[in-house]
């Protein structure tokens, strides 16, 4: 039971070495029964492992790349959607409360989507 890098030249005459080795052997031979220890550890665990610090920037970058890629791959579709949206909005009767409501609704939806994407467990 000597420290491994000393086993090549152990001091066999060292009575304290022998005593410590015997004590260590006895300790290692004694298996401590679990007795609910593992269950207590599991009960004390937080819900999830800590996420790495690079996760948020990576998620934002991936979303940005996805949107940019979509815009590059299908420019006509996106432009058409924007034009159609503009045409619909322009044909609607505009009132200040209605406009404020629409903007508020969009802000809430965007915030909720961002919060969901960047949520922590």
């Amino acid at each position: 039971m000597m420290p491994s890098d000393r086993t090549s030249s152990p001091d066999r005459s060292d009575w304290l070495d022998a005593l410590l080795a015997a004590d260590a052997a006895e300790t290692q031979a004694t298996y401590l029964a679990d007795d609910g220890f593992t269950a207590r550890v599991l009960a004390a665990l937080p819900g999830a492992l800590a996420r790495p610090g690079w996760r948020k920037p990576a998620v934002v970058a991936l979303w940005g790349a996805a949107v940019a890629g979509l815009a590059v791959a299908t420019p006509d579709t996106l432009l058409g959607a924007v034009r159609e949206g503009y045409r619909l909005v322009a044909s609607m009767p505009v009132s200040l409360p209605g406009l404020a409501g629409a903007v508020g609704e969009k802000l809430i939806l965007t915030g909720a989507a961002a919060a969901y994407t960047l949520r922590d467990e």
Partner: protein
Amino acid sequence: MPDPALTDAQLIARALVAQDQHAFAELVKRHQSSVRACLRKLTAGNHALADDLAQETFVLAWRKLAAFRQEARFSTWLYRIATNCWLADARKRREELLGDRVDAVASEDDETVPHVDDTHADHARGSSLKVDLERALAALPAAERAAIVQCYHNDLTHEEAAYVLGCPVGTVKTHVLRGKQRLKAALAAYAP
């Protein structure tokens, strides 16, 4: 439930990727005995405190599992966390810190470790020797006790003990040497 035949590395991967607490539970079952035994030695036989620190050790291991780089065995990594938990607790209890006495030890009087009364030498060398060894270990400075527990009771190499204790290999060797000198002085009555 995870297959008990899985290696530690496979269980760690499962715990990390799927946040599988059952895989982590298997790791706890495998290593709880050695970690608790190590802490019982470090806390000088305070079983309740050792088990509290062992629980704290495994909770910290779960939280930091993503930081485990496999540069050491999982058991060695656990010993490192356990030793840090013990030192943090000792700090709270205003006990001496690991390494605090590196420079001071040389000038200290060996009387810090109580000598075994010579009259005890006539006693049976079985249980009384064991009890006196426990007492002498408990009386060692924290750094020396930790080094001896890691090198002998946990059967680590000096390099592994240095990783666990967060100090250079030379410092570990010094702590072991000085700790043994104190133990010899304390247990002189049992010397052949």
